[in-house]
């Protein structure tokens, strides 16, 4: 069977609506992963062992298993113990926490890479450890790590496709729906790939601008 892209227009609105969901999930999860990552990094580096260890186990659970399983457990598992999170929220949290763990590794490295002299300078001025961390170390660490964090955000966009397992009608699921009606997998997957690619290019452009802004202060 040859290619026939004429089937697309009829389903374009479904697919585009899916794209909106994808963007919404990506943005939500990106925010969770960013601040979650900072929090996890600070805990990993500075919290007392009793706090650190549970978080380490938690991190390893997220690093060591496929996202698919994690989403499933958050959505279908939490409700068994009485916590009913809506699918969209579960997707944002699952995806966000998954990448928060990745981001935390980056933040940890970049926090450690901030010159020791910086903390010392802050401490000699009389700032407490927490104050020095908040005002001096973390802002620098964040700034230095924006490019790789940005890459994680872009990876997050692509992994948002997995949120379809818990029934969120994002881009990939919308395409499957259209394919389910037309049996034209190739055409729709190419379309979807193109849409992901465009969103991706948009994110890269934003990232480049942010990087340039940061470079200006360096």
């Amino acid at each position: 069977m040859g290619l026939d892209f004429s089937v697309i227009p009829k389903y374009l609105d479904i697919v585009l609506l899916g794209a909106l969901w994808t963007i919404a999930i990506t943005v939500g999860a990106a925010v969770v992963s960013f601040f979650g990552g900072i929090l996890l990094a600070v805990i990993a580096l500075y919290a007392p062992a009793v706090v650190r260890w549970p978080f380490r186990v938690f991190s390893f659970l997220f690093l060591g298993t496929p996202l698919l399983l994690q989403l499933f457990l958050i959505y279908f598992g939490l409700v068994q113990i009485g916590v009913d999170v809506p699918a969209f929220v579960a997707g944002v949290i699952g995806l966000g926490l998954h990448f928060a763990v990745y981001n935390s590794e980056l933040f940890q490295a970049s926090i450690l890479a901030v010159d020791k002299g910086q903390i010392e300078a802050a401490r000699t001025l009389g700032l407490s450890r927490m104050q020095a961390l908040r005002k001096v170390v973390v802002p620098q660490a964040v700034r230095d790590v924006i490019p790789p964090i940005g890459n994680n955000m872009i990876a997050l966009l692509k992994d948002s496709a997995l949120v379809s397992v818990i029934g969120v009608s994002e881009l990939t699921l919308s395409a499957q729906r259209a394919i389910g009606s037309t049996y034209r997998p190739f055409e729709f997957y190419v379309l979807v790939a193109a849409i992901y690619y465009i969103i991706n290019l948009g994110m890269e452009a934003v990232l480049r601008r942010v990087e340039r802004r940061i470079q200006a202060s360096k």
Partner: protein
Amino acid sequence: MSEQKPFIDIRHAKKSFGTLEVLKDINLQVDRGQIVAIIGPSGSGKSTLLRAINDLDPLTGGEIWLEDKQINMDLPHGQYERHINKVRQEIGMVFQHFNLFPHLKVRENVTLAPKMLKGLSDAEANALAEEQLTKVGMIERIDYYPSQLSGGQKQRVAIARALAMKPKVMLFDEATSALDPELVEEVNLVMKQLAEEHMTMIIVTHEMGFAESVCDRVLFMDQGVVVEEGPPEVIFRNPKSERTQNFLRKHLAGQHA
């Protein structure tokens, strides 16, 4: 040592890193308004001593007093933190590598601590920053980032940042040795100005000329002990100890070669 009670009083200071003894029973008294230079070869413990004064490298033995407060106290963690943060506000420190906060503009570098720790309003803090930056001749660069400044300019901002906390003492750890030779003078000028205002200062330096011209007293340290101390004329022109003589000879050779 002209008054009764010294302003800074270091008694039997000892410091080891593991088995390495870096400070071995150091005693040093500094009066209010006095300016003391510390010289000595690399690794002799100069920085360690200076850093001990605000407990950045806590001593393993001995006591350090500032006026009537002991600095290196053994307190429960939370109490110690409150105590040391208070003490450090009274002690300004200037580092070899400036340690300006690169993500903040010059203005914010200076206002950060006063705003956070003394609760100054934006307006008050700004006025303070402008005053201190004017003093070190950096007022025009108030809205620059540190990366846009030369080394000498950075160091002057670092001094302004420390001064903004209105410290009672200023500590300088080789404040000019990371600078290009042409930029050294501008920083030295600021330090001389502080000297004229009778700021109490302890200055670790490799610049004998500068030390001679501003300091009341010079300490020569080697391998964790104070080998010799006295007025600059004596230490530089007429040192008693052979170690001091050797050091000065080598040092001047390296500098002028």
